[in-house]
């Protein structure tokens, strides 16, 4: 018996426990995916099993995917167990494709995630070579066909029906399939099969869903020695911002969101984000927004790579320096940095401008808008006086009124009794019946608002909820706001 016991994952399908995955040792002992767990345990008594956790696998793969960003900005998840990296134009950073692939796979192996890899012109060919060719195969440009030829037909990612049918027809190798006329292939195995072959050979394009949209607005700094001091992180932040912003400026672009990721030695990523209220590319300003957040970064044993991502990139004209100080200050220099500072410090929901919203229910008549968005054309109705302070929830008051429909002559709020000297109203406000069920918004839920002033001159906004109907239920009075 080997020192490492065979391992298998078990999934429950329709009440039967079956093997969902087996490792090399288990496969060598004749176990295979889909076998009943009981059979497997009988064959290999010392089989180590664990429950299959597809969601956990997926999450782990996503983490790995994010980690791979250090190699290339364009990484896509591939099925349940693969990653596709677009390495065009980045391999020179490692001194060639072979060195890059070695670095990637060696790192994975060191962390106990052994992987196979291959590099080819097309995602289809790379998929096939990584799984069925010798490990670390690198297809020369345009040379994937001879490498694919000896592989089994499973390497072509055909659908299940086609894959089951091919061996029955004596077709085991890709080369056999390639030798057949295309028309026959399409007729017998469907257009999908032809498309897969074309994708592998580069005759058809394949769209990959990259985890992050491919963007040119990405920069990366690698260090000879891992860094960990806060002052170093700050300096690096400034450097990488300058790098990316210089490119943004050269292309006349600005970005709204920036994500700075510190890639640690142990493979963990530490992202730091900053947003701008309007597109910008001022490296100093962006670095200033990022720097206060650096103390949340845990450098661990050190950080070896830093990447900076710019998102929401849009054209931005060249900044105009204001010639005279009095002639109006541009938004870029004044308010926008302030709003950015505040939003990055407090959070987006804590900085706003109140915009009118088409609703007559007072608490819904205000919409929070981003402070620097263009102001709306319409305002609130000036003929409907509103308080300067609106209580978040109305407070119950005790009221004395001469007649049921009259404004009160006296009320008590927060333990203090007030005589009403002047009153104005009512302003009848119904509930928005289209939003709720009828019994919640019917006539019983109408509010009659009064503006009242007490003897000291304090002005209040009070309302009676509902109407005096049969005398069964006395409507309640509430205080909703203060005019001041």
């Amino acid at each position, binding site marked *: 018996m080997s020192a490492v016991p065979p391992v298998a994952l078990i999934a429950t399908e329709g009440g039967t426990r079956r093997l969902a995955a087996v490792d090399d040792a288990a496969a060598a002992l004749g176990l295979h995916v889909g076998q009943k767990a009981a059979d497997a345990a009988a064959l290999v008594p010392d089989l180590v099993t664990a429950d299959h956790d597809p969601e956990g696998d997926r999450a782990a793969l996503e983490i790995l995917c994010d980690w791979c960003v250090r190699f290339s900005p364009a990484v896509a998840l591939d099925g349940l167990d693969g990653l596709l990296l677009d390495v065009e134009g980045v391999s020179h950073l490692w001194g060639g494709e072979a060195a890059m692939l070695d670095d990637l796979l060696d790192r994975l192996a060191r962390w106990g995630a052994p992987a196979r890899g291959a590099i080819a012109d097309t995602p289809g060919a790379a998929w096939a070579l990584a799984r069925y060719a010798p490990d670390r195969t690198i297809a020369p440009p345009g040379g994937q066909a001879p490498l694919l030829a000896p592989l089994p037909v499973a390497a072509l990612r055909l659908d299940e029906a086609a894959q089951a049918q091919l061996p029955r027809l004596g077709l085991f190798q890709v080369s056999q399939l390639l030798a057949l006329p295309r028309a026959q292939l399409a007729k017998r195995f469907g257009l999908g099969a032809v498309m897969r072959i074309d994708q592998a050979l580069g005759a058809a394009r394949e769209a990959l869903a990259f985890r992050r949209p491919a963007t040119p607005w990405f920069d990366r700094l690698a260090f000879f020695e891992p860094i960990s001091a806060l002052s170093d992180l700050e300096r690096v932040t400034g450097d990488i911002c300058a790098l990316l912003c210089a490119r943004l400026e050269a292309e006349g672009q600005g970005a709204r969101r920036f994500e700075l990721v510190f890639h640690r030695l142990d493979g963990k990523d530490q992202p730091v984000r900053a947003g701008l209220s309007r597109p910008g590319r001022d490296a100093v300003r962006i670095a200033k927004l990022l720097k206060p957040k650096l103390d949340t970064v845990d450098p661990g044993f050190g950080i070896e790579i830093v990447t900076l991502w710019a998102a929401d990139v849009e054209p931005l004209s060249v900044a105009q320096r204001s010639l005279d100080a009095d002639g109006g200050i541009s938004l870029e220099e004044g308010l926008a940095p302030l709003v950015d500072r505040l939003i990055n410090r*407090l959070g987006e929901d804590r900085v706003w401008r109140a915009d009118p919203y088409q609703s007559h229910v007072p608490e819904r008549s205000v919409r929070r808008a981003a402070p620097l968005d263009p102001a709306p054309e319409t305002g609130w109705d000036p003929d409907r006086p509103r308080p300067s*302070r609106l209580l978040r929830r109305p407070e119950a008051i005790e009221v004395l009124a001469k007649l049921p429909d009259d404004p009160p002559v006296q009320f008590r709020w927060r333990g203090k009794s007030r005589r009403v000297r*002047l009153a104005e109203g009512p302003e009848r406000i119904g509930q928005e019946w289209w939003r709720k069920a009828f019994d919640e918004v019917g006539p019983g839920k109408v509010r009659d608002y009064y503006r009242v*002033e007490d003897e000291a*001159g*304090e*002005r209040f906004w009070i309302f009676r909820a509902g109407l005096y109907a049969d005398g069964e239920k006395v409507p309640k009075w509430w205080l909703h706001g203060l005019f*001041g």
Partner: protein
Amino acid sequence: MPGAKPALSALRAQIAALEAGTRTPPPVLPFGDPRLDGCFPAGGLQRGGWHEVGGSGLEEETGAAPAAFAALLLRPLAAKGAVVWVMRRDDLHAPGLMGLGFPVERLIQVRARDEAEVLSVLEDALATVGVAAAIGEAEAPDLKAGRRLQLACERRGSTGVLLRRRPYGGPAGPRGSNSREVSGSAAQTRWRIAAAPSQPPPGEPGLGPPRWRVELERCRGGRPGAWILEQAEAADGPHPFRLVSQLADHDVAAGEPELRLVG
């Protein structure tokens, strides 16, 4: 040492230039009534400084009358730039400010998490180009915070207002406590605002334009005063307030309601 004299005077001139650079004669915000403007050293509310506005009684907590007063006070400034309003509780109702003639579209509201954050955001806003005025709702800044606010105001000549407001449900502060005296020393002025009974136009039902009983408790380089002010109608001119009556002496005036209660 005759050789040293020119050098010394050159240095003095340099220092004078530096000081003049930071302290240009501050522009003022006149009320348009000599009975009010006379209390201020420069004939109006000084810009480039901060002012403390508080309420009394329940208003210390709700802060409605001081907020309305501050909004009206800063209304002329809002035409020149944005106004930042920093608060801890977001009960400020923009339609109400619009009713006071305040340009709500220039108002940026910020909700801070605690008192220290209110003060630091206020300071940041005051020192920013493009911000004409900033209002912060805080309990009591200490001397250092007050001084920082003052420096921030001087940098860009913006005007700050500190609305003194107790946190909701907080203990009622002792009236005239030490903290009030201390905080007042850094502010240009200190105001106490209370509502005053309004006078509807004769023959018209309902409420008249809002009135406040405004006490200027402290004014640096000027003298205190107390008035009844009313929100001015558009026809009354560019100033936001109309003086209804001058209260004879603000100490006596302050004691008046107390007396009535006893009687």
